């Protein structure tokens, strides 16, 4: 690593990492530890199959099915697997429910632990120093960075994830969605509202 280059040559810094990754793939393939085709499948899974649309279905089901929601709040991984929404949730997953009085927000101050199985890969901001440092001391300030303002008397609870325990926020069901199907409800559920840095889209934003 050439420390003196860091600040003025971002391009060469990136190519250094590109070369490192290429070298690692070559040597691990030669030694038989990895198979490039298997790596393709891992990349493809995170690009196409594993993402926040899974969590959106979980939230929509929780909004529609009181029994499912009860189970979800007791043991989220079990409830999600039982409903067939994900084959298997790898880590202990806790669902935290927003109410009129309490808003939940999720962070991983120590690294970037995130419920990959239901939300996919964490966005860059979730892994960034500004979010990790400030979510726990200034959650309202962080929400303002996302353009979200909550009523003054809403309590904000910030959950710090670990390697073993991940969280998903169950936001409040938007008004005016009575009688909506789970599929339609899911279109209101954004990634950010399941991390607690956003709110679901209002019903008016969706075409009937």
């Amino acid at each position, binding site marked *: 690593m050439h420390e003196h280059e860091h600040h003025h040559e971002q391009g060469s810094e990136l190519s250094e990492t590109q070369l490192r990754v290429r070298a690692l793939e070559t040597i691990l393939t030669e030694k038989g530890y990895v198979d490039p085709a298997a790596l393709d499948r891992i990349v493809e899974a995170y690009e196409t199959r594993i993402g926040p649309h899974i969590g959106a279905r979980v939230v929509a089901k929780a909004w529609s099915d009181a029994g499912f929601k009860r189970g979800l709040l007791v043991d989220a991984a079990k409830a999600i697997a039982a409903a067939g929404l994900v084959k298997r949730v790898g880590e202990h997953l806790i669902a935290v429910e927003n109410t009129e009085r309490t808003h939940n927000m999720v962070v991983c101050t120590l690294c970037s632990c995130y419920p990959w199985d239901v939300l996919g890969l964490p966005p860059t901001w979730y892994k960034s120093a500004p979010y990790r440092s400030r979510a726990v001391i200034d959650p309202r300030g962080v929400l303002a960075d996302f353009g979200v303002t909550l009523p003054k008397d809403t309590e904000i609870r910030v959950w*710090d994830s670990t390697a073993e325990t991940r969280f998903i926020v169950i936001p409040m069901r938007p008004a005016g969605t009575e009688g909506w199907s789970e599929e339609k409800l899911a279109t209101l559920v954004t990634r950010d509202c399941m991390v607690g840095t956003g709110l679901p889209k209002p019903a008016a934003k969706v075409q009937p």
Partner: protein
Amino acid sequence: MNGVHDMGGMHGFGPVKPEKNEPPFHSKWEGRCLALNRAMSFAKVWNIDQSRAAIENLPPHLYLEMSYYQRWALRLQNLLVEYGLVVSDEI
């Protein structure tokens, strides 16, 4: 370990800057880097705690300067050498 990774409550990192419609990977090498790390975690030579420690043990100035997947690439290289799967000359 009380290192630079323990960021909760630190001041001075500035505002959070969300990116609209962020793709899963910003370039191809990031996807390869993630896949290599995942594939090697399935090999169970090291566990998740050892792999986290390998990130936390990076020199603090590198930890702060590197992007997420840059840290992952260096972490994987360090683990491979540490666990004797690769000798550093080979990389």
